[in-house]
């Protein structure tokens, strides 16, 4: 327990920064930009305090802050992090710095509003990850839509209005049903505390309905097939910074929701409907992989690749149930979830970096069409090097972070079912195909046209941006142990939770017996 309200600071510091930047107006643009950068870096430093002070030996919530908010409904301002949320918070504060830098010279229309929107967004996203009260979570979760709606709509591409309204309505549609589920559970448990929800005993019908409500909310956010269609539109139209935040963090919020809500609150419904999620994940990996292959637009291609990679995340999270239900297999369940987590963090770095790369080209040529490029490496050697590196990481090259998560998930899937693992592993081929083919067409070959010939290589700002991200991708790929270490206790605890039947005694016949017996076996796994 830490007395200093570190989480509150991490949430509200960037929001305060956003308001300061907003108030400074468009007159002193340079000053506003430096202020925004200062707040972004300061927030990152503060969030590092979470990592440093984090006790990885326990699955308990840490840095807990608790105060009454709406006393008559038992709604609290209740914050805390565990091994799942803490790395995601640090990822958020880390990525936001690059978003601020990426918009530095490129955004000319109302740059202060642009930067302020991202800072406010950052605080709200940290709020999502650290809320332990369901209503507080929901408020942050929905509030996130407002700045993103405006970012895409104001600074986006030609078809931005369609894309941003589609984005807003899709996510809004997904989440309102979650609200009803949360209210329902409030009347069952008497509080809005998420941890109380975890301990709540629920019948199978209620669990299934709640699970579906959660699924609508999180599947749209992840996004899972078939509710993924907003993502390519939103990505293509969003400005570079918006794409980076969308891919690197907002998608992770969906995955985080599964871990925080679906799995521990409705374990039995999750177990009985795991086949659905696994099927959808495999469709996302395979089908969307093929869709990515035929894209003509670089951003769209990366957007589809994101959907495929997030399919791995959901696969890793739900493969647990198949492993638990199969008495012949021991272990592997923790690996699935950890693999999904590593994949989320790694995808945050890689997709963020890829969108920054596309942004670099777009700023110079104002086109995202693959056909408009060719032989970029001849005029932009630095850029070529970075682009190839991130593409390799996206394809899951060993030594990069992209490999670690995918490998763990495939390994865990193997324990459940050989053919599923086989299908999942085809992504290694597919991802290599669509990313490297794009790189080949864009980066290598003869200089295609005058525009490419006139390109100037990365400036210092862009080199720093991409260089730091490349270092992060390498570090996580070569030495993932610190990250795994941080989340290990929490994930083990989560697996214990989902292994225990939560049905009331009257319905306990429906429990998959083997799962309860397995708890001991899982806990003893390394």
């Amino acid at each position, binding site marked *: 327990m830490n007395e200093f309200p570190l989480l509150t600071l991490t949430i509200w510091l960037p929001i305060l920064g956003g308001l300061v930047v907003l108030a400074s107006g468009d007159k002193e643009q340079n000053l506003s930009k430096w202020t925004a950068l200062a707040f972004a870096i300061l927030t990152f430093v503060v969030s590092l305090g979470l990592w440093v002070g984090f006790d990885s030996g326990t699955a308990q919530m840490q840095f807990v802050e608790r105060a009454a908010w709406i*006393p008559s*409904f038992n709604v609290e301002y209740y914050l805390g992090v565990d091994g799942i949320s803490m790395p995601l918070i640090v990822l958020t504060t880390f990525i936001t710095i690059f978003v601020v830098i990426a918009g530095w010279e490129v955004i000319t229309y*109302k740059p202060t509003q642009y930067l302020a929107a991202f800072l406010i967004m950052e605080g709200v996203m940290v709020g999502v990850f650290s809320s332990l009260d369901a209503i507080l979570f929901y408020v942050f979760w*929905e509030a996130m839509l407002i700045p993103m709606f*405006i970012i895409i709509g104001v600074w986006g591409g030609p078809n*931005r209005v369609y894309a*941003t309204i589609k984005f807003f309505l899709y996510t809004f549609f997904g989440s309102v049903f979650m*609200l009803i589920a949360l209210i329902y559970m409030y*009347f069952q448990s008497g509080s809005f505390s998420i941890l109380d929800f975890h301990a709540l005993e629920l019948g199978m019908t209620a669990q299934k309905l709640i699970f579906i409500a959660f699924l609508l909310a999180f599947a749209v956010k992840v996004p899972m097939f078939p509710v993924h269609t907003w993502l390519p539109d939103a990505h293509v139209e969003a400005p570079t910074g918006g794409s980076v935040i969308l891919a690197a963090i907002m998608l992770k919020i969906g995955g985080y929701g599964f871990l925080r809500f679906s799995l521990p609150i409705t374990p039995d419904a999750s177990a009985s409907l795991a086949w659905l999620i696994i099927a959808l994940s495999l469709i996302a990996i395979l089908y969307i992989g093929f869709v990515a292959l035929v894209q003509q637009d670089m951003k769209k291609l990366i957007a589809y690749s994101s959907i495929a990679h997030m399919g791995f995340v959901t696969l890793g999270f739900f493969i647990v149930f198949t492993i638990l239900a199969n008495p012949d297999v021991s272990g592997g369940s923790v690996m699935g979830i950890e693999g999904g987590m590593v994949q989320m963090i790694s995808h945050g770095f890689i997709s963020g970096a890829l969108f920054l790369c596309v942004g670099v080209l777009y700023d110079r040529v104002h086109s995202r069409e693959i056909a408009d490029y060719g032989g970029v490496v001849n005029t932009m050697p630095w850029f070529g090097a970075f682009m190839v590196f991130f593409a390799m990481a996206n394809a899951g090259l060993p030594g990069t972070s992209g490999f670690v998560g995918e490998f763990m998930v495939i390994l865990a899937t193997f324990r459940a079912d050989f053919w599923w693992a086989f299908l999942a592993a085809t992504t290694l081929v597919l991802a290599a195909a669509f990313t490297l083919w794009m790189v080949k067409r864009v980066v290598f070959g003869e200089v295609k046209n005058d525009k490419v010939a006139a390109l100037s290589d990365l400036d210092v700002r862009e080199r720093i941006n991409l260089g730091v991200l490349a270092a992060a991708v390498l570090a996580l790929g070569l030495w993932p142990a610190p990250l795994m270490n941080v989340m290990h206790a929490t994930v083990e605890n989560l697996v214990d939770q989902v292994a225990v039947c939560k049905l009331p005694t009257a319905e306990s016949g429906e429990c998959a017996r083997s799962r309860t017996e397995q708890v001991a076996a899982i806990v003893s796994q390394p």
Partner: protein
Amino acid sequence: MHFDAANLVPILPEITILITACVVLMIDLYLKDQDKGLNHTLTLVGIAIAIALTGAVGGGEAQVFFDGNLVRDALSDLLKGSVLIVSLLAFVYVRAWLQDRGMLVGEFYVLGLLAILGMLIMISANSFLPLYLGLELQALSLYALVAFDRDSPKGAEAAMKYFVLGALGSGMLLYGISMIYGATGSIEFAPVAQAVSEQGMSNKVLVFGIAFLVIGIGFKFGAVPFHMWVPDIYEGAPTPAVLILGSAPKIAAFALAVRMLVDGLSGLHADWHQMLVILAVLSMGLGNLVAIAQSNIKRMLAYSTISHVGFIFLGLLAGSAQGYASAMFYSIVYAVMAAGAFGILLILSREGFDAERLEDLKGLNDRDSWYAAMMALIMFSMAGVPPTVGFMAKLLVLEAVVRIDMVWLALVAVFFSIIGAFYYLRVVKFIYFDKAADDAPALSTTGGVRVAMSINGLALLVLGLFPAALLTLCQAAFA
């Protein structure tokens, strides 16, 4: 029956408004055209004093006075305060519009003040008679306000529609009241409640009377299927009149419903509960669906009102103290949002130009980014997106509905609110994503309007972040 001067203390706010109305009426006769601004100042001062007096005489135990005709309790304190504050904001916004069109005359303020007086009496009513009198005073003043722009055929048409349909609604209400009187032998709420609890649902006249009362309430709220007047009047009436009739009267309509259904007829909850469910679902559905098709923003806001009324009914029909409190929270919040939305339309209007189409909001962010932010807040709040208070209001009524095990109704409500989100977002789209027309001049507003609009808009954010205080007041009203 004897007159006791102590009876006058609790109705000091009403007396203040009445005196202000009389003073404005008299002084206006002697004012030269260039001094007409004094009407405005006097009105604002009068309302401000009434707010202060509401606070001063409020609090403490409920008091019944004037031989059981009027009551002052926690409910009336809060509702009166809200009506007065919202009206104060409304009167601040209307001045520039009236001045630009040479309509800054005493009559507008007198009629507005009399409408407020009617609302206050409705809120204080402890029997059907003052309730009906207050309603009529409010309604007659508003009919005249709608026709205030005498040269506008659209305004006259709207006033005519409003009058005919309003009279029809009042007639229904009166018919219902007379049946209740016939069945219970009293027009005071407490004896009515007692008679109802003795007779129960066996008395067909009583149940029949309730049906008429609910129809009357439906008319006054503008709930489907009694909503036909709302869009036409919102579109036809001059915007200041719409501002005044679209904001605070919703709070008064809530008082009307609570005084009759809860204070008087809560024993028949099972009967009116069913009727309100139908009205609520129809209102949310039709309001939200039809609003999408509107290109006139006043008409769009009219349909949006209808859908919000559906949400208010959700809280009412729950039949619990929690439900009433949430409906009250919703009504107050809605009145604040509506005042802000129409206030922005007035700010956008200028001499010879009325902001009425959605396109008129184009590029507001370029023209004035502060007002743009306020309007965006109002729209997000109406759509029910956190962290604005519109979300909290929706959350509370949904909670009340889930509490009585009507999860299906909550699902219907959120489903329609998704549809509703679209047209509010479209307004934000015009504000932020589109460029202003080339001939759009910069907005010129007085400091007072800017302050009022800032308070109005930021209140939605602050109440959304800290809803506990207002919620506690609402709950205390039904404790």
